[in-house]
C-alpha cells in the first residue's frame, strides 16, 4: 500500500482525478445517468409499483331483492375495497362480464337469503373472484370475509327481527370467540412506496454504479489513449485510484440526492441513524463500482459493457427482495438472495430508515456488504492492473 500513499503526496493523483472529473462532466450520457436517471427511476418506481388493492369493481346479482340484501350490497360497495361495477340479472351474465374483464369480482345473493335469515337459518352468499392476479384475489377475499363478518355482527346488534338476534348471538353455553386485533408497526398507514423506494435505492447504486464505472474504465481503451497514460510518469496504482475516486464521490452525491428525494417525495421517515444508512450506501456503491470495473476488464466497448449489464441486471434485481418480498420466492431461490448486495443494502435501508434499527441489529448485513465490496474491488483492481501492465 505504499504506492497509493506516495501518490497522494505527489499531486499527480490530484491532476489525474481532476482530468477524470472533467471527462465525466463532458460526457452527456454519463451526466444524465448520474442525475436524471436516478430521479426518474425513483419517482417512477416509487409511485407506480403499488400493490395496493382498492376499488375492485364488483358485479352484483341480487336475486333476493329485499332490504336485507340491499344492505349487504351497500356494506360491500361502501367499503374502500369494492366499488359497484353494475347489476346483473343472472349468475351466467355475471360470469360473462367477469370473463370480458368488465368486472373483477362478483357477488350472488340467493333468492331465499332474507327468508332464511328471518327463519334463523344460515344463508350463503357466493363470491366470484377473478384470480388471474393472485395478489388482488387474495386481498379481495380477505376484504369480502371482513365485510361479511361485520354484517353478521351488525345483525345481532340491530335486532330487526328476533330471529336475527337469536342466530347471530354467541352461544350462551359455548366458548367465547377470539377477536384478533391487528396492529401495523413501523408503518401504520401502510404506505407501499416506502418498501419499493428503499429497494430501488440499492438497485440504483449497483446498476448506475456499474454502468458509470465501466464506461469510465473503458474510455481510455476505446479512444486508444491508454498508451499515453502508461507512458506518463504515473504508476498503474495512481491511474486506477484516479479513476476510482471521482466515480465514487459522484455516486455518493447521487446517493445523498436519492435519500433527500425519498424523504421529500414519498415521506420515507428517518427513524434510525443516518450514519448507518450512508455507511451502507457507500459500501453498496463501492460494490457497484467494483462490479463495473470487473465488467470493463471483460469487454472492449461501452456498448458491450452495457450488454453485459443487461445479462446481470435481471437476476440481481429479481433475487434481491427489492421489489417483492423474499418469502414469496420459491424455496430453492431464497438462499441465493444472501449473495446479493442489493438484498443486504435493502435490509440496512429499511432497518435504519423505517424501523429505527441500529448497527447492533444490522451488522450481519454490513459484514456481508463489506465482504462483497472488498472481494469485487480487489478482484477488479488485480485484473485491471494485469491488463494495463
Amino acid at each position: 500500500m505504499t504506492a497509493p500513499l506516495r501518490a497522494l503526496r505527489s499531486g499527480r493523483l490530484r491532476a489525474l482525478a481532476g482530468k477524470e472529473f472533467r471527462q465525466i462532466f463532458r460526457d452527456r450520457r454519463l451526466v444524465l445517468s448520474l442525475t436524471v436517471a436516478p430521479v426518474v427511476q425513483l419517482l417512477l418506481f416509487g409511485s407506480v409499483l403499488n400493490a395496493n388493492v382498492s376499488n375492485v369493481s364488483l358485479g352484483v346479482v341480487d336475486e333476493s331483492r329485499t332490504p336485507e340484501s340491499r344492505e349487504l350490497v351497500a356494506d360491500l360497495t361502501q367499503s374502500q375495497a369494492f366499488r359497484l361495477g353494475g347489476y346483473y340479472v343472472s349468475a351466467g351474465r355475471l360470469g360473462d362480464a367477469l370473463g370480458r374483464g368488465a368486472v373483477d369480482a362478483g357477488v350472488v345473493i340467493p333468492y331465499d337469503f332474507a327468508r332464511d335469515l328471518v327463519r334463523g337459518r344460515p344463508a350463503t352468499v357466493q363470491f366470484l373472484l377473478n384470480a388471474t392476479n393472485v395478489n388482488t384475489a387474495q386481498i379481495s377475499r380477505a376484504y369480502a370475509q371482513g365485510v361479511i363478518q361485520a354484517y353478521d355482527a351488525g345483525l345481532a346488534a340491530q335486532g330487526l327481527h328476533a330471529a336475527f338476534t337469536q342466530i347471530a348471538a354467541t352461544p350462551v353455553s359455548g366458548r367465547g370467540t377470539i377477536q384478533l386485533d391487528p396492529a401495523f408497526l413501523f408503518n401504520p398507514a401502510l404506505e407501499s412506496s416506502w418498501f419499493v423506494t428503499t429497494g430501488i435505492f440499492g438497485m440504483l447504486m449497483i446498476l448506475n454504479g456499474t454502468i458509470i464505472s465501466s464506461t469510465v474504465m473503458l474510455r481510455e481503451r476505446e479512444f486508444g489513449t491508454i498508451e499515453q497514460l502508461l507512458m506518463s510518469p504515473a504508476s498503474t496504482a495512481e491511474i486506477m485510484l484516479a479513476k476510482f475516486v471521482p466515480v465514487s464521490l459522484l455516486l455518493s452525491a447521487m446517493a445523498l440526492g436519492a435519500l433527500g428525494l425519498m424523504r421529500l417525495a414519498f415521506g420515507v421517515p428517518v427513524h434510525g441513524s443516518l450514519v448507518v444508512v450512508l455507511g451502507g450506501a457507500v459500501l453498496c456503491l463501492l460494490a457497484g463500482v467494483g462490479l463495473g470495473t470487473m465488467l470493463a476488464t471483460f469487454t472492449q466497448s461501452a456498448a458491450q459493457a452495457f450488454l453485459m449489464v443487461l445479462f446481470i441486471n435481471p437476476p440481481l434485481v429479481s433475487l434481491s427482495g427489492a421489489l417483492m418480498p423474499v418469502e414469496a420466492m420459491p424455496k430453492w431461490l431464497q438462499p441465493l438472495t444472501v449473495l446479493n448486495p442489493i438484498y443486504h443494502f435493502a435490509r440496512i435501508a429499511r432497518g435504519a430508515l423505517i424501523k429505527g434499527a441500529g448497527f447492533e441489529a444490522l451488522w450481519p448485513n454490513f459484514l456481508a456488504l463489506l465482504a462483497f465490496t472488498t472481494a469485487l474491488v480487489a478482484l477488479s483492481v488485480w485484473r485491471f492492473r494485469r491488463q494495463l501492465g
Partner: protein
Amino acid sequence: MGRTLAQARKELTQLVRDRLSLVLALALPVGLLLLLGRAFSLSVADVPIVVQDLDASTASQGLIDAFRASRTFHVVSWPPDRQPDQALASNAARAALIIPPHFGRDVARGVPSPVQLQADGTDANTAKLVSGDAAEVVAAYNARTAGAGHPAPVQAAIRLWYNPGESPQKFYGPGIFVMAVSIFPALLATLAMAKEGEQQTILQVYVSSVSASEFLLGKILAFMAVALAETVILVGLLVTTFGVGFAGDPTPFLAATVLYAFCVAAFGTMVGAAIPNQAAAMQAVAFGGFLLVLLLSGLLFPIANIPAGLRWISNVVWGRYYIEVVRDALLQGGGWAAMWDKVLIIGAIGAVFYAAAWRTMRRMQVRA
C-alpha cells in the same frame, strides 16, 4: 419485394454470425422467463411469526397450533423475556402474536377474548396479507370450537375463477414473456441500425438502388422473425412448465403476436435510425422496452394503482395491450369479442413507429 427479402436475409446472416447477438436473441429470453417468471410473486408462504403466550393454557396452545398448521405462517421461537417487537425490528419475524393473560379463562367463560397481532408494516402488501390470513386462521378456529350447532348467520362461499390454484406463475409468466419479446428483438434491431449509422455503411445503402421503405421493411422483417422464434420457444415453455394453456380461441393471440412482432422491430429500428450510437441507442431501448413495459403496462401491479398523473402514459405503452391479449388467451379465454380493439391498437402503434423510422431515414438521406 425481392430486395426486401434479400435485406432481411443479410440481417439474419449477420445475426447468426455474431455469437453474442445469438445468445441475446435466444438464450437470454429463456433465462429471463425461467428466473423472473418464478421469482416474481407477492404470495408469501412460511412467514416467520413469533408468539408471546402470556397465558400458557390449553386454549392458548390450541390457538398457536392453529397458526402452526397454516401454510402462511411458520412459528419461530423467541425468548419470553424479550419484547416481541424486537423480533420485527431485527428481521427475525414478520409478525408477532400476543396472547394476553387470562385468555384461557375468558374463553371458557364465554367472554369475547382479544388477542393482538403485530405485523411489520415496512412491506405494506405483505402486512395486509399476513393480517388477512391471521384473521382467517382465527375465524376457522372460532368456527371449530363453537361447534356445529352455531354457524355464522351469513357465510361467504368464495370461488376463484381462471386460476383456481392461485398460482402466481400463471399471472407473471405470460407478463415476463411479453417483456422478453419487447426488449430483445427491439435491442437487436437497434444495434443493427445504429451500427449502420456508426460505421457509415448506411451511405452504401443510400447510393444503392434500395429504397428507404425496402431497406426498413427488410430489417423489420428479419427482427420480426427473431421475435416470432422467441414467441414459439417461450410460449412452449409457458405451456410445458408454467401450467397455462390456450383457453378458447387462439386466433386473436396469433394476429396480435404478428402485429406485436412488427411493432417491437419497428420501435428498435426507429430508435437505431434516430440515435446513430450503439451504447446510447441501447440505453434508449432499455428505457422504452424495459422500464415502460415493466412499470406502465400492468405487468406487475394493476394499472388502476398508478397515480392519475402518470396513468395516461400507459395508454400508449404498446406492451400493455399485448399483455392483455396474452393473459386473455392463456387464462380467461374472452376471444375476439373482448380483444379486437387491443389487436387494432397494437397494429396502429406499430404503424406509427414505422412511419417515424421512415421519416428519419428520408431526412438523413437528404442530408447525406
